[in-house]
């Protein structure tokens, strides 16, 4: 078995990624895309932001270039840099430049994690100029109409340091994501994992209990992603309570008393 090697701009999604629209987010994204507007996805972790992007890339038939931001991400990591090859310097495009050249969708995940100076390089791309200045080579890369820029962030982090600057956020069309309503969430779990519907319902019920605890002991409730993980374990015949403990409770907290409480909640549901 060999892993396929692809250049990011050649990575087209050919099979439809499963996505259940919660509201009219697909229409809004499409409208933003046709109007060449960048998009900001807000929402808690694991509620389907990345899946939504994959789905839209498939729908719009554009390559999806995802950059997971971290606090050491520099502007040259995005735009590109000189490397040396055979005694000469060679310019190598960064993911952002590649996406612009290929007219792909560039998705900067968790943008707030990146350094403040890094986020500024996306500004010219994200307004009506739609250009990427590449100072080091003295070029200006103009984005084709197919190029699309999307960023995501989780407003749930209550840290003042992890906030998105107004100058950045005001360039984007914002889509708010949240966990789907119970029936839809159960449907998603069934569809993703194939567990019986009744079990999915119970799982969602349990998820709501953990979300009730947000702010009083838990930082976040169980996300849809975690539910899918738990459901997959259950599908592989793991006892539901243990599945919830390993894939949900332990992921949510390290606090011993909270773990017991979450365990007791899952034990009450199943």
């Amino acid at each position, binding site marked *: 078995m060999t892993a396929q090697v692809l250049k990011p701009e050649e990575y087209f999604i050919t099979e439809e990624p499963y996505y259940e629209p919660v509201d009219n987010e697909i229409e809004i994204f499409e409208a933003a895309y046709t109007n060449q507007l960048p998009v900001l996805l807000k929402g808690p972790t694991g509620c389907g932001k990345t899946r939504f992007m994959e789905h839209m890339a498939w729908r719009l038939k554009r390559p999806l270039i995802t950059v997971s931001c971290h606090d050491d991400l*520099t502007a040259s990591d995005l735009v590109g840099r000189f490397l040396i090859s055979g005694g000469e*310097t060679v310019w190598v495009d960064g993911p952002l430049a590649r996406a612009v050249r290929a007219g792909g969708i560039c998705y900067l995940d968790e943008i707030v994690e990146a350094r403040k100076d890094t986020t500024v390089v996306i500004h010219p791309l994200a307004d009506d100029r739609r250009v990427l200045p590449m100072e080091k080579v003295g070029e200006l890369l103009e984005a084709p109409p197919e190029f699309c820029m999307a960023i995501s962030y989780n407003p749930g982090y209550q840290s003042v340091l992890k906030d998105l600057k107004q100058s950045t956020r005001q360039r984007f069309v914002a889509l708010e994501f949240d966990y789907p309503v119970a029936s839809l969430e159960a449907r998603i779990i069934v569809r993703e994992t194939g567990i019986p519907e009744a079990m999915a319902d119970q799982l969602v019920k349990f998820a*709501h*209990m953990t979300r*009730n605890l947000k702010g009083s002991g838990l930082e976040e409730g169980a996300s849809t992603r975690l539910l899918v993980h738990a459901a997959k374990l259950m599908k592989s015949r793991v006892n539901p309570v243990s599945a919830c403990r390993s894939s949900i409770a332990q992921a949510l907290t390290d606090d011993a*008393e909270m773990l017991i409480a979450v365990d007791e909640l899952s034990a009450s549901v199943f």
Partner: protein
Amino acid sequence: MVELPTLSEAETRDALVTCPFGDYELIDFGAGRRLERWGEFVVERPDRLAQGDPYDSNWEADWVFVEGVGRPGHWEPTRTGLPKEWTLTVGGDQILHCRLDAHGRVGLQTREIPCAEWIRQRIEGCYDLEDLRVLNLFGGAGYVTAQALKGGASVVHVEANRELIELARSNAGIGQVDYVQENVMDFVEHLLRQQQRFDLIVLPAPALGHGPRGQLWDREVDLPKLIKYLPRLVSENCLGVWLSTDSGAITWKAESLGQLLREVLPGCTIETLRLGVRAPDGRVLSAGVAARWYDETEFLQSGGMRLTAAQLEERLDTHMVSLGAAEEPARALAEFSRAQQDFVLRCVSMVGRTSAGMAFNFVSHVCGALHLMDEAGVEAWLLHCMDIYDTRGLHPAVAAFKAVESYARDYRERASGLALDEVVNVLEAFVHGLNGRRLRIEAGEQTYTDTETLFLPATIGRFVSRSENFQLYKAMVVHQWAQNWYGSWRLDVEAELESFDNPDAALACFHTLETLRLDARVREALPGVYRQMQQLRAGEHTDLATASWQQAAQQLSTPTARVQDSLALVAGLIAEPLPAPALYQGMLRPADVNRVRNARLDADRQAFRIGLLKMQNEASTAETPADDESLDNAGAESAAEQPEVRLRTVESQETPDGFSYQIELDGRPLPAPDNVKGTMASILQDLGEIPEDYLEAAGDGAYFAGDTGVRSAEDVWKGTYHEEGAYLYNEWDYERQNYRKNWAVLRELEVHPVHDHFVDRTLYKYRGLAMDLRRTFEALRGEDKLLKKQPYGDDIDIDALVEAFADTCHGEEMTERLFTKMHKLERNIAVMFMVDMSGSTKGWINDAEREALALLCESLETLSDRYAIYGFSGMTRKRCEIYRIKSFDEPYSEETRARISGIRPKDYTRMGVTIRHLTMLLNEVEARTKLLITLSDGKPDDYDTYRGAYGIEDTRMALIEAKRSGIHPFCITIDTEARAYLPHMYGAVNYAVIDEVRKLPLKVSDIYRRLTT
């Protein structure tokens, strides 16, 4: 002549040997004989003191000593082949040799046992064992000698009888001991001539005796003489003298022995004892009398002998309000072991420092408590009472002391069962996770809910295993939650059941029906819990007795069953026998529910109406671009042009009935703010719907009627003696080794700003220094720096590369340092300055502090470190004050400067609570490094008991707490004596002492710079 106080007979105590003592046992005695078991063999011999009749007339001894008339007695074996010598073990590890001798002796004398015990305790309680010398006169078979040696002393063992000396040698060994076979009187005179002195002297005087050369010992003549020699025999730090004798004649009572000792060795404690051995039937065989002399003050630390009632009373009296109060408790306490007595004395002195009244109540009840609990339990009980005293005063605390029995019961239960305290966090999180209104969990006498709080027993010990007890807690929580969530209280149950002849029976019947209904709902919603609840009931008889009950259960188990259905069934079933209650169901208290529920309904209605009004106002102002004026009288106008509010039912899985409401304004859905949503959910949970009249938006009056619930700290303080609006902090009591709960009351106030250009003047005064500081601090500022020629980095250093190429062309080695790297010197520091505003800073210390702060702020502004400055002062625990000079998120402004100028000396320094509060504030800030810097002029000190060790220990504990949460404390002080206590509080390197107040302004910034680079 000075008359010495006489010893009274009442003072004399019994010192009894209880049998079996190792392998030795007194089996029986009477009619002038005693029957004993010495290891394997039973021995019968004569004893003058064995008065009365024996318990058993058929004695079966192995050896019997027969006294001869006019000739020596002899030993008669009752069977052949019995040895005359053997060994036995006593006192755990002492092997004793027995030898039947011609005088009817076996070896050990029973009076030696208490003596040896005391001697060994005296020796072991002594710290300095170097050359501790014991003189054992009339040493006998050497048991006392052996014990003294085991304690670590050296012994001079004097005995006239050669056989006994040999026996002693085999019992005690030959190390560290001189065996002297000599007449006691002669030897003592020899010792006096040699000026030898001893740390312990043992003198068990026989009535008559003979020296090796026929010298006669006559107690009546020789003992008083020997005792007169004692002052010249005892060493300077003598640990004690033991004097005992067979109480043959009337003259030799314990008191007379004591009196003799007192005459020659006054000034120390003399204890008089009646020695004896207790036979199995309870009678006591006397073993003579004794008096012992020792310095008791030193003995207190180490002793192990029980204290007498009088001694106890004397000690207790120092902690009592009135003399004589301790008499009765002391008598009761005299019965306890020395360890327990010491424990009580320790506790009393601890309590006594807090309150003499508490101390009295403690000693009055402690004996009962000691009977009921172990020492750990008594200590927990005492702390519990002290907590009550701290929070509620003496009377409730006395009640708690009196309730020792119920406390002991709880304590035992807690030891075996599960305490609510241990699991309350888990249970609370658990019930928060379930749907609905936030429910608190509290310990209560009964298990019930008032719809906002769940009351659970403080401990559950019903099951053996903790997990089962926990499951029972959980079942109780779920049942009570279900009452709230599935609407048991949607009706006024109290009113509904009033019509019954017997409302109590009706309530019980209703509760049983509701339990059936709720169990059915739980089974459907929380099947896991339901299974566990069933398991808990496994042992119970859960079958429903009659057909009508079964029918009712059937009816109530449908998902649509409501509380009304349960209520309707009551009339039909009240006459039927009630099924057994589920052990988790607790009870219903409709009156409590009504009180809480009605208050909440009112509050919710009000809040809902206000919420609606706000929403309407917002909606209408958003529609019509309003100017400022219309905003101000929005309340008045809105009444006229209020858009119509309607509620539309929408499906929702978040409510018990499966529906919720969407607020619509003129037909358009309006997103409700979270607080309105919350109120709506609460109303729905209470009523199942939102009644029409709730939609009439509140008028002006109501709008402002709502109590904002926020009061400024100062207002509260101005008013009554209130703890409202204040922060409560625990305080560490090192004597209790425990926290006093919510002990210190702290308020955050603001410094009154003084606009007098103090800061400007200071900056001018120190303008040279200020410039210097700015320069040094600028150098610290975190800046991006492009580092060239790095071995790895973000980008290629083209210059380095060109150079390297040139080098390679030259044939030199190519360097690897070809990259550039951005290096950010990031300062991520939050610093909290805690400034002493106590009265002692008055004058130039205060000036120096203010100047230091002024310069510091300038420096910190250059650095852009986050910082906050708070002053602290206060008087007593009820009035700790903290003065905000600059908070973290506040910019350094003119106002801040005026506040620095306005720092004035106030009262005292209660540091612990301040540190705890500032720790809390500092922890709210996110920073890699957090510093808490104290500017102080002395030790923690407050008006009440907060001084000395108490203050230092509490401060230290507060600092430890701060360190634990990741804060680095540091102290800058001008108290030159601070080196004595600061290392203990802050640690060896975390403080700086500034010798001259003058230098404070210069130094503080400098120290800060050193700290943070």
